[in-house]
């Protein structure tokens, strides 16, 4: 599928434009894994289709000198832009092969994250594959999943989230997979002070989930990886989207779209109106 991927990877590797190319390949059983290719001869392993859910930006090192070619969907592309905006990534090192992502399916149904996908094309790329019949999306769409929770009463929401947070086993898979989590030492591992208690109990679980979400406010690009890897099925994607909505409504900032913009939480305007209590942040 999409022979352009193979061609481009080969061309870049042969021209010594990149040291390695990161993409997807399919195993014999049909499952998909991310691969890193350094030899132009290996390019026929590359694949794109259902199952290519991983955010390939989770598989790169933020620093170093390696020149990387990378295959990015819309959400993954936003990850890269956000990392550049935060000053974590040297864009020069990367050659991006973007794709206008047709959306991925699982068991014949669109993945949850694709159902509410806002941007299916990387905002920044060197070359772009535009499959026939796939439209470029660039507008927010009705988020039924989120609004169904928004419509609950506050007490119902509390009940819902309390139940969700109670399930957490603090495996930190959400954190480990998140391409935007790059702190050297996570707050949850700090002991002076110990903001988050180590033991697994409702209060510390809630604390962890709240601070994890807040840390991604104005940063999360909705790649859905945390949600995918959560073994107990906490709807992390909804929480993240809620925060994205709050930030967008207040500050008109959408992360991962423009590397030149200062991230919302590192910025301010003298006339920010977010304190206006009459206005809901959703």
């Amino acid at each position, binding site marked *: 599928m999409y022979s352009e991927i193979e061609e481009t990877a080969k061309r870049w590797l042969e021209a010594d434009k990149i040291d390695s190319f990161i993409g997807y390949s399919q195993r014999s059983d049909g499952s998909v894994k991310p691969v890193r290719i350094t030899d132009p001869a290996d390019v026929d392993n590359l694949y794109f289709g259902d199952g290519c859910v991983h955010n390939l930006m989770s598989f790169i090192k933020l*620093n170093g000198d390696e020149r990387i070619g990378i295959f990015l969907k819309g959400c993954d592309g936003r990850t890269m832009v956000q990392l550049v905006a*935060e*000053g*974590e990534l040297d864009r020069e090192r990367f050659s991006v092969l973007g794709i206008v992502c047709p959306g991925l399916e699982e068991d014949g149904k669109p993945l949850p994250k694709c159902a509410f996908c806002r941007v299916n094309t990387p905002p920044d790329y060197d070359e772009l594959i535009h499959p026939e019949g796939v439209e470029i999306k660039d507008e927010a769409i009705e988020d039924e999943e989120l609004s169904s929770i928004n419509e609950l009463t506050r007490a119902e929401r509390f009940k819902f989230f309390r139940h969700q947070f109670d399930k957490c086993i603090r495996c930190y898979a959400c954190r480990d997979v998140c391409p935007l989590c*790059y*702190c*050297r*030492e*996570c*707050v949850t591992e*700090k002991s*002076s*002070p110990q*903001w988050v208690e180590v033991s697994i109990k409702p209060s510390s679980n809630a604390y962890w989930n709240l601070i994890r979400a807040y*840390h991604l406010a104005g940063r999360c690009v909705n790649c859905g990886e945390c949600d995918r890897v959560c073994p107990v099925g906490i709807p992390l994607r909804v929480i993240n989207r809620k925060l994205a909505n709050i930030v967008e409504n207040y500050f008109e900032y959408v992360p991962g779209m423009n590397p030149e913009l*200062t991230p919302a*939480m*590192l910025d301010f305007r003298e006339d920010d109106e977010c304190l206006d209590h009459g206005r809901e942040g959703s």
Partner: protein
Amino acid sequence: MRKIGVFVCHCGTNISSMVDIDRVIESATRLPDVACAVDYQFTCSAPGQTQIKDAIKEYNLDGVVVAACSPRMHEPTFRKTLRDAGLNPYMMEMANLREHTSWVALNRGEATAKAIDLVRMKVAKVARLRPLEEIHLPVTRRALVIGGGVAGIQAALDIADGGVDVTLVERSPSLGGHMAQYDKTFPTLDCASCILTPKMVEVASHPNITLLTYSEVEEVTGFVGAYKVKARIRARSVDLEKCNGCGTCLEVCPVRVPSEFDASLADRTAIYRPFPQAVPAAPAIDRESCIYFKTGKCRACEKVCPADAIDFEQENEIVEVQVGAIVVATGFHFFDARKYTEYGYGSYKDVISWLQFERLTNASGPTGGKLRRPSDGMEPKSIVFIHCVGSRDPSKGFPYCSRICCMATAKHAVITRSKIPDAKIYSFYIDIRAAGKGYEEFVRRAIEQEDVQFIKGRPSRIVQSDGKLLVRSEDAFLGRQIEVEADMVILTNGAAAQNDAAELAQMLGIGYDQYGFFNELHPKLRPVETNKAGIYLAGMCQGPKDIPESVAQASASASKVLGLLSRDQIAREPIIAEVDPGRCTGCMDCMEVCFFTAVEEDEFMERKIAKVLPGVCQGCGACVAQCSDGAMELRAFSDEQIHAEITALFAVEVAR
């Protein structure tokens, strides 16, 4: 385990009348880290302090909680007590039992409960305090003054007289600034040049002053006591060492361009000296209008120069200086009156600006001090002054009052009267603002003795008719529209910040307001300091002001500089942010939110980390709240300490 002493003050009856001191003591005694808890009538008194000192020795205390008044009141007092007792002064916290408790509580029960909580919270915090040492920074004993107007001159001279070396950087070819253009000064009618030019000469000859004219500051890095400054000396094309200022070159130059110094009322040559008394006296070649630089031919000046001082090959030169302090005195520029199309400035020749009027009445000006109107050289018999052009006008100019224009206009009117005794002089104002020594009297003199018609009303329109200007306005005292026929109209344009003020502010890292005027640190109490330690302000760059004020501010800045540079080292309160290099990810979000540019990149174990500049950090903690990996800490207000305070509050069950 800490050994903490708790000292509860009655403050006479201020606290004890509302707070059950015994219960506070009792509750404090039961806290794990507390070694002793005692009370006293007035803990801040000498016996009260002695009680603390004695307890420190007796119980070998390593931390102290004083439960008394607001720390904003007595924190320094008790810090000193600790120091006197041999304990690190930063091992102390105050619980505010007076302003925040006894004085505001509705009943004794509530006040006592709050007092107990506050003491417990402070004990928890003190248990996590660390001894802090004052920060000492080395000092370079040299100052930089930016701007060579009257404020810059005064600041440079005062600093230099105090025995400190000064580098003065001035953008134009000569010292003097706007004041050199003026004819007389209000309210004494002193000749501006007579009081300014001697000072200019003094600057040039002062052994402690290095004068860089035709130069601009290019880059400033570093922090208080150790600023590194790069200045660019523009190619003057005249060798300052060789030139003797004879002026022969000026006579032969064939180029004529409008003179900036004469506000375009006269021409100057391409090799020019802004005015005869310029310091340095050596001229400069304006390469943009010089024929040689445009076509490669001419060199007339070179041929006649007896000193062989002309150097067409000269290049811009970058000099670097290290200074301990900086005085910014970059001045202002006049509001461009062309925006007021209703007054026709720029279209009607006889509508002139205030600065042009100064040049017209100045003996060194284009008319030799004779007041003649520009269109036909006629002596104007009816003269109108219009106040507030660009000031107090958010629609076309600036909302603020420029402060000097009322007085300047009164001065101009009086000068006009002396030059043309039979002239009709009108002055249109909104309000007269003459707050200053002798100012009001001067305005009254203009009105009562010099027969100047002050008319309350802001003119709406000037119409040209048969070589006359018809000024239409209201006379608010009559409540009627009036029309005044004038031969000449002088627009008293307001003061605006320099066009590139914001650039300079960003280069220096100092604050500026929406107009481009630099911000003082505190409008009342720290009027010449900026938010950046070691950078001070003088003159109009901070906001509109008159000459005496500019000079006073310059001297104030100079005294601040001398005070700062009189020490070998600068001591600063140690409450600043610090980075844990092991934890820092190097995301540099802290740098992003720091207003004071106190964070810079550093390297640790071959990776990028943040580093706090102790001389620059002001200790606000914005970076600490931003740091998600918890690598940034604010001393005396660390996460750990505040966490302890919060959790200590809820450590005991209270009845709900």
